[in-house]
Each structure stands twice: as C-alpha cells, then as structure tokens.
C-alpha cells in the first residue's frame, strides 16, 4: 500500500511517529530490539567473550599474577591427572543422572500423556511444574535432612530391619561413604531429584504426539503391550527424551551447590571453577574449566539436533 493513502494528518508527535513506523517498519523494529540487544548482545555476550578470552592467558607459577599473553598452556593444565579426574567424575555423574532421570521420568510422562484425563491431567501438569519451579535451595536442603545419618532414611531402614543393607551399600568403595549425605550416592540422588522435572516435561510432550493409530496398528499386528512400547512408542518418543537429557546433562555439568552440600567434597567442574576464580585467584584455569561444559554441550546439541530433538523442545 502506498504511504500516501494514509490519513497523513501529521498533527501531533504521536501521529507523526505512527506514520513513520508505517512507512518504515524497520525503524520500529530497530527501536524495539535496541534495548534487549544492547543488554544481551553487548553486555552479556561481551562478558562471555571476555571470560573465554582469559582462558588463553596463563598464570605465573611463582608470583601468581596473570600473564596477559596468548598461550595454550592453561588448557594443557586440564590434562593434569588431578584436573582430568574432575572432568571425568563430572561427566560420569552427568551421564548417570541423565539415565536415571529418563528411567524415573518415563512412567510419569507416559501416564500423563496417555491415561490422565481432565482434572488428573492438570494434577500431573502442576505436579511436575511446581517442583520444577520451586526453590532450588529448599529442595537441596530437604535432601540434607533426609539423607543425614540421623535422618529419616536411616530411621526407616532400621525400622524395617534393613539397616544392614544400608550399611552394606554405604561400604561400597568410591560411591559409598560415612552416611548418605556424604557419599556419591547422595549427590547422585539429589541431582536426579532436582533435575527430574526437566526430563518429564519434554518427554511427556513427545509422548503426546505419538499417534494413537500407530499403537492400534501395532496391537492389530499382534504385538503385546511391552513390544509396542519398545518398538513403537519409545522410538517415536526418542526426540523428547533426548531434549530432556540436554537439560539434565547440562545442569549437572555446571552445578556446584549440590556436590558442595551433599557429597564427599570431591571436586566437580563447577566447584573447581568456583574455587579457582575465588580463593585461588586463577582466573585463566577457571575460564578453561568453564569452556569444557560449553564444548561438551555444543557436541551434545549437535548430536541432539541430528536426532531431531530440537523439534521436541
């Protein structure tokens, strides 16, 4: 439409601006985008780049001063046994947490997608959404109460005569410990608990998209419930499961509060980054550590994209 056909009564500034926005929508777009882009594109991305840049600096081993020269030495330090261990431990934990979350999430997501109707649908939705949003720290604190040596788990185990089973589990080397709240098992349970809702929601969304006709076709062809689940439902729901695993994996990689409060004080990537940039003052190594989760997630996202997980987000 030509601009001249507009009622061009340029009486006030509001009308003039309206006419300008109409003739040149790009100006309005630029005005709308400028503040958020300044914030996110300049301030936020700028700080990200500033951080990553520092991972190419190094620290003088004698004075502890940051040497502002380009070097890959800091990245080389990541391969030292004590640092490599931290990376391996964190990635193993993230993988275990992701698998366990997927296993626990599946019945909830499947039930909510296939069988919950009306009011129950809302109950399931709220039942997953409220824990997702409610306070992270409160959730972690709740588990400190539960897993404490004098806490409810020990009490319940002794009550049903399984105290020796609990002791046996805790005496397993590496993952056991003095009590559940000071062992890897404890850290693992809390990670699974805190990130589980992130797995359920995308999984449920993808299960809801599985066409019912396919399930009926599978039954008509003589497949039992389990066979249909394995050969039809699961492959179709896979993108959603992978979308959920992006969250559980990434969140575990970066977290430093949970292993600090519940666990045997063995280092995870997040904790290493936190202590390196704080008390140790080794920003270059902290930055190099921070690059690892970013790289792992980039690879993970690339794989997930190929498997079609982005359509399920």
């Amino acid at each position, binding site marked *: 439409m030509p601009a001249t056909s507009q009622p061009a009564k340029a009486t006030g500034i509001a009308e003039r601006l309206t006419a300008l926005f109409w003739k040149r929508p790009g100006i309005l777009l630029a005005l709308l985008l400028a503040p958020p882009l300044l914030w996110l594109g300049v301030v936020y991305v*700028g700080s990200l780049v500033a951080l990553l840049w520092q991972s190419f600096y190094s620290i003088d081993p004698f004075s502890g001063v940051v040497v502002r020269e380009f070097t890959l030495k800091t990245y080389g330090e990541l391969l030292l046994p004590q640092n490599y261990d931290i990376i391996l431990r964190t990635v193993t934990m993230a993988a275990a947490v992701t698998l366990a979350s997927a296993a626990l999430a599946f019945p909830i997501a*499947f039930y909510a997608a296939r069988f919950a109707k009306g009011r129950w649908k809302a109950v399931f939705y709220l039942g997953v959404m409220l824990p997702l949003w409610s306070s992270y720290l409160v959730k972690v604190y709740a588990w400190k109460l539960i897993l404490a040596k004098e806490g409810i788990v020990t009490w319940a185990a002794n009550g049903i005569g399984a105290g020796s089973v609990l002791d046996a589990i805790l005496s397993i080397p590496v993952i056991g410990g003095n009590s559940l709240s000071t062992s890897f098992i404890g850290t693992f349970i809390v990670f699974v608990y805190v990130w589980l809702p992130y797995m359920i929601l995308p999984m449920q969304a993808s299960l809801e998209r599985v066409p019912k006709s396919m399930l009926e076709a599978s039954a008509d062809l003589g497949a039992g419930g389990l066979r249909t689940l394995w050969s039809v439902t699961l492959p179709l729901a896979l993108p959603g499961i992978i979308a959920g695993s992006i969250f559980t994996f990434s969140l575990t990689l970066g977290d430093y509060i949970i292993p600090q409060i519940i666990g045997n004080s063995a280092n995870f990537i997040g904790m290493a980054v*936190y202590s390196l940039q704080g008390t140790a003052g080794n920003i270059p190594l902290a930055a190099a550590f921070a690059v690892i989760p970013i790289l792992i997630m980039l690879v993970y996202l690339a794989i997930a994209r190929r498997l079609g997980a982005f359509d399920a987000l």
Partner: protein
Amino acid sequence: MRSDRPPFALTLGAIGGLMFLHLPILLIFLYAFTTEEKSYQFPPPGLTTEWFGVAWNRADIWPPLWLSLKVATIASGLALLLGTLCAAAMARARFFGRDTISLLVILPIALPGIITGMSLRSAFAIADIPFSMWTIMLGHATFCIVIVYNNAVARFRRLGSSMLEASADLGANAFQTFRFVILPNLGTALLAGGMLAFALSFDEVIVTTFTAGTGNAAKTLPIWMLDELVRPRQRPVTNVVAIVVFTATFLPILAAYYLTSGAEETAGGGK
C-alpha cells in the same frame, strides 16, 4: 482394546514418581517444628512452634529478605520491559539474524549458571563496577528476560496482526493501539511471565554468589540460606526461612498457572 486402562505397574511408577517429587518438601515443614536444633534427628523428639518466633526476632534474617524482595521486584520489572520489547519485535517480523536473537535470549539460562555468573563478574571487574544490589539485579534480569519473552511471544503470535490493522484503520495511532489493544490482550501473559521471573529471581543462588560480592550488605535470602547450610546454627530457623522462600516462589508460580491456564499456552512449561 486393553490400552485404555493403564497397567498396574505404570500407575505405581507414575504415582511413586510424583510422590518422590513432592514428599521431600513436606519434611522441610515438619522439621520447622522440631525441638532438636543440633541435628536432623528423625522422628523429631518433640514438637514446638517457638522457632517461628525466634526467626521473627533474628536480626540477621530481615535485611536479606528485604534485599531479595527488592532485587526480585526490580529484576522482574526490567525483564518485563526488555522481554516484551524483544517479543514484540520477534513476533512482528522475519528479518536477518532472527534465529541468532532467539538463541541470544535463551543463552543466559541455557548455559550453566556458573558461566553466566563468572562472566558477569569478570565484566564488572573489567568495567570497574563495584558490587552492590544493582550488580545482583543486573545478573538476575539477564536470565529472567527469557521467561517473560517466552510468555509474551506466544501471546503475540495468538494476537495476530488483524486486530492491530483494525485499530490502525479506525484511526488509532501506534501508542493508542499499544495502550488499548496490545496491552489488554497481553496483560495476563505479562503478569504470568513477571511472576515466574520474580520466583526465579527470588530464589536464585548460583549467579548471585558471583555478582553479590562479600559482606552482609550483599546477602540475599538464598545466600543467607546457603551459609546456614554450610555452617548450620539453629537448624529449625533455617527451616522457617526455607518455608518463607518456598512460599514466595510457590504462590507466584501457582498464580501464573491459573492466569494462563485458559489460554493455549500455559506458563511454566519450560524453565
């Protein structure tokens, strides 16, 4: 066909899973009433309500509470402004770099909080900005933008362009259209987004530890709680505070759900 009734094992798994998600929180409430303050003994040796009074009179709890409320209010306000602007632009047009911008909005929440926190901290150091309430708030607003954006962009899409064109045809200028057409239609989505942003900011701890600096003046309520978790004093008092934090996040989330539950898109589907 059998598939209309769920197998027993599935029902058990689903109900069990939901209980796993909810029962732990209840223990927080129970332990706020225990008479044992030195350990997490279960079952509690006795029950008392004295801790609510003790918490009320503890001078070290009020300043963090006010700070958290202030930070969450201002941060969600800022996020409302920036998120809505962004959503308005993205819903309106297809343009070069559109995908980059949507990635940019999600980035602060998609990257681990520790990376967002640390990079903001080093940026503050480079720019020589001293830590204050404002640095905490800047960090919070950054990751709250996406929450408002998600809510607003869905509503903008549903609004479509016909109403805006009708408004223009009837002679309204851009500001009148915004005031009388866009805003009323966007209202509940923005309110829901703002509430979710408030809840997210009120309880955020990871980015805050990096942008708050040290000292008591920069202690938000979650930071106070984290200190108590690492070095416990009167443990039931921590539980009372945990109940306050839980309520301050729970109520806005519930409100956001009911504000948008009639619409096609429901708030809180993704964090």
